[in-house]
């Protein structure tokens, strides 16, 4: 009971604190008279008790979408539209971006990283729906460095604990080959170079499958293999006119960039085809080389399963068998270290003086302005 209070009505000192609708009141327990009512706090009085809190420590972050996140989400939608992805992809990519943004490491990242994050979310969405989008395409669109992209991508996959399937090769072949401008005559595409899309697609697909079987695809970037396969498919469909065309010329006509490893992949693929040709009796007598084998690609592909089995039964990619004998060192780590050995690494006083003089001279030379 608070001391010193007296009920104005009955004069008793039995005042009790009671709350009426959460408003505290002092009430006389004898006569029930309300002595004082709770003071409704005013913001003015309360403000005296307030202290400053930084935004990052308040709950404001969680309650509203920050401008940076809004911009990121807009970028995700824009990127999906530029790539002409199906509408459902947009929502998934946006959801991934929001999920990533929950993590403080992403929230505090540099703008460059947030920009690349947009691409990563779109890439993951596409990969999960077997949409053949390459990292190269995204990096070109975002003007991003592949190194930065790869770091952010790996971090995002780990952070969100995602299972991202690998690039679907068949889909990539279809999309990539469809982008070749070889299916209609134009100023840059002579009549003899025009090809039927379906025929070229199916043959390219078969060649890519062959490359996959014969270990030309594992560990390598998929696109150069497809370029080389498309070139061979195109050449083999009309070899008489097209054998004279080089890979570079082909890519130029098709209005497609020539990836640098494509020429090596082409040589490797031709080597595989030559090996297969050796298994066919009527081709063995022809003594084919890398140019003439192109004419017979149709036949080789027709029988590719048996030919591959026959040609590579003794194992492919023979590696020179060098057994490196493990060098057994007998160092214990506690050997004595001779003074002379250490001294060989130290400069003599004369050398120190010379070095200092040379250093000073060098600095003087660089600091002297060039004479006019």
């Amino acid at each position, binding site marked *: 009971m608070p001391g010193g209070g007296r009920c104005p009505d009955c004069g008793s000192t039995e005042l009790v604190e009671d709350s009426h609708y959460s408003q505290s009141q002092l009430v006389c327990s004898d006569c029930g008279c309300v002595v004082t009512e709770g003071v409704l706090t005013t913001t003015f009085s309360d403000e005296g008790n307030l202290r400053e809190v930084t935004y990052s420590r308040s709950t404001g972050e969680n309650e509203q979408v920050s401008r940076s996140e809004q911009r990121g989400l807009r970028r995700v939608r824009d990127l999906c539209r530029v790539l002409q992805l199906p509408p459902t992809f947009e929502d998934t990519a946006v959801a991934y971006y929001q999920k990533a943004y929950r993590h403080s490491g992403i929230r505090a990242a540099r703008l460059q990283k947030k920009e690349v994050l947009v691409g990563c979310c779109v890439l993951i969405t596409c990969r999960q729906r077997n949409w053949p989008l*390459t*990292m*190269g395409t995204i990096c070109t669109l975002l003007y991003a460095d*592949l190194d930065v992209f*790869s770091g952010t*991508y*790996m971090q995002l*996959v*780990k952070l969100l*604990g995602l*299972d991202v399937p*690998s*690039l679907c090769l068949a889909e990539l072949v279809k999309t990539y080959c469809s982008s070749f401008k070889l299916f209609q005559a134009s100023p840059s595409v002579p009549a003899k170079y025009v090809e039927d899309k379906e025929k070229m697609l199916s043959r390219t697909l078969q060649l890519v499958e062959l490359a996959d079987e014969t*270990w030309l*695809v*594992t*560990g*390598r*970037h*998929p696109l150069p293999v497809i370029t080389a396969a498309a070139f061979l498919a195109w050449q083999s469909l009309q070899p008489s006119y097209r054998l004279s065309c080089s890979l570079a010329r082909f890519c130029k006509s098709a209005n497609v960039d020539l990836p640098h490893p494509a020429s090596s992949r082409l040589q490797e693929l031709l080597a595989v085809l030559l090996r297969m040709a050796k298994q066919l009796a009527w081709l063995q007598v022809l003594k084919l080389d890398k140019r003439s084998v192109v004419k017979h690609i149709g036949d080789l592909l027709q029988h590719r399963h048996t030919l591959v089995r026959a040609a*590579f*039964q*003794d*194992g*492919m*990619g*023979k*590696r020179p*068998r060098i*057994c*490196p*004998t*493990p*060098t*057994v*060192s007998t*160092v*214990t*780590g*506690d*050997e004595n*270290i001779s003074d002379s*050995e*250490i*001294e*060989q*690494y*130290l*400069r003599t006083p004369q*050398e*120190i003086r010379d*070095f*200092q003089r040379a250093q000073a001279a060098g600095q003087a030379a660089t600091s002297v302005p060039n004479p006019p």
Partner: protein
Amino acid sequence: MPSAPSRAPRPLAYWVIPQLPTADPLPMDEETETYLELYLDQCAVQDDFVPPRSPLFSPVVPYVYTPNPSNPETTFNSHLESKETSGNFSSVDLSFLPDELTQENKDQAVIRSKHETEENSETQSQQSRLPLPSGQDVGPGSDSSSLSNSRSHLHPGDANSIQSAPAKPNCNSSPLASITPMTPMTPVSECCGIVPQLQNIVSTVNLACKLDLKKIALHAKNAEYNPKRFAAVIMRIREPRTTALIFSSGKMVCTGAKSEEQSRLAARKYARVVQKLGFPARFLDFKIQNMVGSCDVRFSIRLEGLVLTHQQFSSYEPELFPGLIYRMVKPRIVLLIFVSGKVVLTGAKERSEIYEAFENIYPILKGFRKA
């Protein structure tokens, strides 16, 4: 993060080969044990079924080839010799055994592990083989696995050395020990003769005194110091060929050594150089921070398949990097696996972790060999 894989290998002891290759590429030979049968045998033991083969045969030892079948006892002993014999196992490098062990203890440890794991290996009727790296190609599509090629590796002169193997005092030489497998103490590579070689060791040590880097750079020939680029002196010595980063706080990082002892010796040499320059350098808290090893399994690996079945641990992005990054949980090691069969293991604090990781990955890789 990743939970237990759905298609995890059976949770057996780490040295037991967990993964069964689906296709058996090896020709069944009466005298030889195929990988498949060995695995089935050890499964049978685990399941308490009647093993289909003779109970004398150890389900645990995969391949220990004896060129001289009439003397299985001596070959068993010779297998225990770490370095003396130039027998079949001359290529098996046992230098990974901790150097603190004396020669006798070493043999004892090896013997103990052999006892516990190779119980019935050398019986009269058995001939099994150690798939030592041989001169033959074991690329994809090759039916001749390393098993059938180990013969080519053996030296003809070994027969004599095997006979003259000195008797081990600690060897009780009862090859017909109990069948119950126990975890070996020292990880001898049993599934293959391939031992990862250490390529780089990173260690740190505290010299426990403040250093004047300018003075060190001036007085030492083998030091470079560019404060605008990096706030430490980079010092190199020729033997062991290593590089050290020496900071003004007195802490030092030593890299480039090929073994723990070499790293320690090199760190001591750097500390001695700093001492000779007039600083009261000490040698406190020497610690190995990272070890990198590499080896070659000698067959091509289908990385696409590996990432499908072990996707919780693997990351394979051919657009970014040609190798598959496998993050093993136990031991905590990161492996870079390449299509050529080369494997790089890193992140170890102890040599045994590298060996253990390779023991774990080898059966998995064998499953993705060209079938």
